[in-house]
């Protein structure tokens, strides 16, 4: 896999080691009784815009941390180092 990602704990690692966790859509909605449409929107929909996206990644074959990083979806290259501490 051509992708490399920078894990905040392990540093830059091969993309094979990570699992994609979707775009960063913010915390769970707090409303106790959201309309089904709204809930579906939160769970299933992402803007999927070509370009730089902030995404969640899981270091599955490493330290097991979930972290966000920014990736250019047109080149599949990470564009910014994620912050060193979370």
């Amino acid at each position, binding site marked *: 896999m051509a992708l490399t990602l920078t894990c905040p704990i392990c540093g830059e690692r091969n993309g094979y080691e990570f699992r994609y966790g979707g775009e960063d859509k913010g915390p769970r909605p707090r409303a106790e009784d959201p309309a089904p449409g709204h809930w579906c929107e939160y769970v299933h929909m992402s803007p999927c815009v070509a370009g730089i996206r902030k995404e969640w990644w*899981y270091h599955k074959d490493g330290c097991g941390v979930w972290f966000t990083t920014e990736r250019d979806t047109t080149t*599949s290259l990470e564009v910014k180092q994620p912050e060193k501490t979370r």
Partner: protein
Amino acid sequence: MNRLDGLPTCRIDSSRKIEFSWQNRRFTGVAGDTVATALYAGGVRIFSRSLKYHRPRGLYSLDGESSNTCVGIDGIPNVSAENTVLKEGMQVRAQNVMGTPRLDLMGFLDKLDWAMPAGFYYRTMHRPAAVWPIALKQVRKMAGLGKISPDFQMPGRFDEIYPTADVCVIGGGPAGLSAALAAAGTGLRVIVMESRPWLGGFFDFRVCEYRPGLPLYERAAELAAQVEKAANIQVFKNTAMVGAYSNNLITAFQKGEADDPFDERYIEVRAKSVVVATGCMERPLLFENNERPGVMQAACAHRLAHTYGLVAGQKAVFSIGHDLGIEAAIDLFDLGLEVSCVADIRKEGQDRELVEKLAERGIDFLPGWTAVDCSGKTVKSARLCNLDTYVQEQFECDLLVASAGMTPVTGPLCLAQAKMAYDAHTGYFLPRQLPARVHACGRLLGLNDAAAIEVSGQVAGYSATLDCGVSVEEGLRQAREKLDSLAGPAKGCDLVMAPVKGRKAFICFDEDTTVKNIKQTLAMGFDATELIKRFSAAGTGPAQGAIPGHNLALFVARYHGRSSAITQPTTVRDPLVPVHIATYAGAYHDMCKRTPMHDAQKTAGGIMQRIGVWKRARYFSSDTACTAEIENVRNNVGMLDATTLGKFRIWGPDAVKALQRVYISDMSKIREGRIKYSAMCNEDGCIIDDGVVVKRGENDYYFTTSTARAGQTVEWFRYHSRYDNWDFNMVNLTDAYGVINLAGPNARKVLEKLTEADITNSAFAYGGFCEFKIKNTIPVRAMRLGFVGELSFELHVPSSYMQSLWAMLEEAGRPFNIQPFGLEAQNVLRMEKGHLIIGSESEQRTTLNDVGLSFLWDRSKSKAGTVGAVALMHTEKQEGRLKLVGFKMDNAQRAPRDGSIVVDQNVCGHVCIARYSTTLKEVIGMALVKDHLAGEGAQLDIYEDECNGQLMHAHVVKMPFYDVKGERLSM
């Protein structure tokens, strides 16, 4: 054929013979031979017949640039003989021949070329439509390359490695080696890839002087020795680069030598910077019959002699367009080849020294001449033509060395997304814009001067070093200055085609595409090179367009009367050279886990099967209905290895919050000493897991998940709390702890013999959790559960004790005739009890409510804060959902297969599990059915493949089927 012995450039050892067979006849080669050179030495001139016309094809190049020398070796078709090192006992066969390569019964097709114009496969034989299926079969039979047996098993050892490097150099010629040395000199880690079995590239086989007293091949050996000696340079020989991707990911594949522990391996290099030094190959000269056996590229004839000790013929004609061709003629003459004449496409601009050397040897030199035709099944004579006057002359010969000049090997650069452009001076496609952290050097840039080639390598090596953050500006500046002072790119030959019509002038050997075919394609209106390639098939063969690559683009530009500057070669795609799929697949990686009691269960007669990542005991006898195992659990006591359950510890101040988030029940109410059964859903409310949670201390919990979820549970917890910064820790104890489920009415009697702890029903009741020691040593976490519907103790103990515990239970249970039981017995036992297995009685769309576990969902909990709760609320009243029901078959003898469908007018669901119940003496099961069939008493009509159109009938009944009051669990 006698080998030239004693040439210093030779790579063969003629004292070591290697036996092999060709067309079932015994042949002998020597150590260092490729299959192609060994065959050539044995007198084989026709290696195969061509794809469409069955024309004879022979040795044309030595690096696998065409399918001419594709052969079948040991049952593997389409192996390039040129790139395959000869091994003892190889069985080599010619391809696409009916008869022998020399006398091919289909050879008449060559005369029928008029019936096969460009794209005939798409255009003819389609009307009337009924003709096509018949024609298709005939065409397929007559055309094609090698054939593979459908039951062929690929032999060999395949491997893969993933090295990282600061600089990856592609090409182990003088430029690549110089680049590697420049970068390695600063301490960087360097990888060099070379497709041949040795380093040295274009220097390796040449005897002309690098500087006075030092021939090129010795210079190559010097560079190679330095590179091999450097500790920080890793050299991969026999390694063809096949792909380049973003972030400088380079893929390659390597063929193993005799002492390598692999036959082929896949290499994936991630480098900070890449240097491409792939050099040049020859551009084929287009003339009539330009692919006859006996026509050969200049470097091919040159290397055959210098590397393999083979003079390619008796009497030769040279028609070349580059000084290297003149050099080859001189060298080969000196080795005893009779050279009739050397025709050079260029009228002027040759190296004067070389021309003088020709004159010294009395070889006719014809500047401004080119070959236009040759005759014979293998070359008997060649016709040359003056490019100005069109005067023609015929020469007898058995070898026609033909080449229109050189052309860069641009594949790797193209894959790396370099922008290439035509250069009128060299006649090459040169890199005009390189991607970041990719550098090119050497002959690839059109350089011809030996010193300039090396210095350009240094420039690239230093540039790559800079990419890695090492400061070498001064060295780079000096190398650049030196390069500027040396000879730049030489003027190249721009002839694309000899002055011929081109009916038999082949632009692509692999696909039998002639110049005439290209003209037909153009006449039909295909103007772009990419479209011409697809319609005429030029460049779509196994050699990936190495032969037509640049000629096609140049020919099209000339045809349109356009400057070549605006044309582009067709797109290059990975893999650059053919790779066995077995090589990509790599070693057999399927690894499975075994529980600590694996061997003990096998000894006890367990039939082990792969289930998920584990090997587990499915049955303990050949009776796949497991009647004895089931009856023993129901009436006596059995034990099951349940080690594969996911087991976790979660602790910390926010552990409960995390449990509350993912579990559907209220996890704040777990009492010490009691078990909490609950389930996890995903955000759609679909059930994904169930298991039990126990509290072992303040903010310290131990829980189990299903086997399938063991791998994802930590990730799941962390994912669903990723925004919360909660303070909790998790550890996966699945492999650290083993589990034995001791089940049956006599379970307590067995366990009592092993522990002093009070495990009476009053002290340790159903649903209880307690920790004690067995034989005062083995720490046990014991749970009173009832998955199989009997009194049972689930014993969790550290894995290292599992084997001992298993033996102790066997020993203690002997008076009761304790027996192990397997997964299938458990499956029936739990089905009788109506207990479900997630994934068996649920599928992707099944919610917690659908399987009747809605009692687990605590509605007083925050819905937004619980994964899946909002969706459960939304889907609770939804109509048309599939619901889990229990059923009894009307016919008590026959169980439908798992997965059979439930139908009325439409498909209304499916059978999840159905078995003959030994305990109940009837066929029972569970099914997911549409809600209108889910009511008690509803009739289910079941269809399976084996029912011969006779639907089977069942009726929905209440679950559980067995021990409705649950008395047996709580004995």
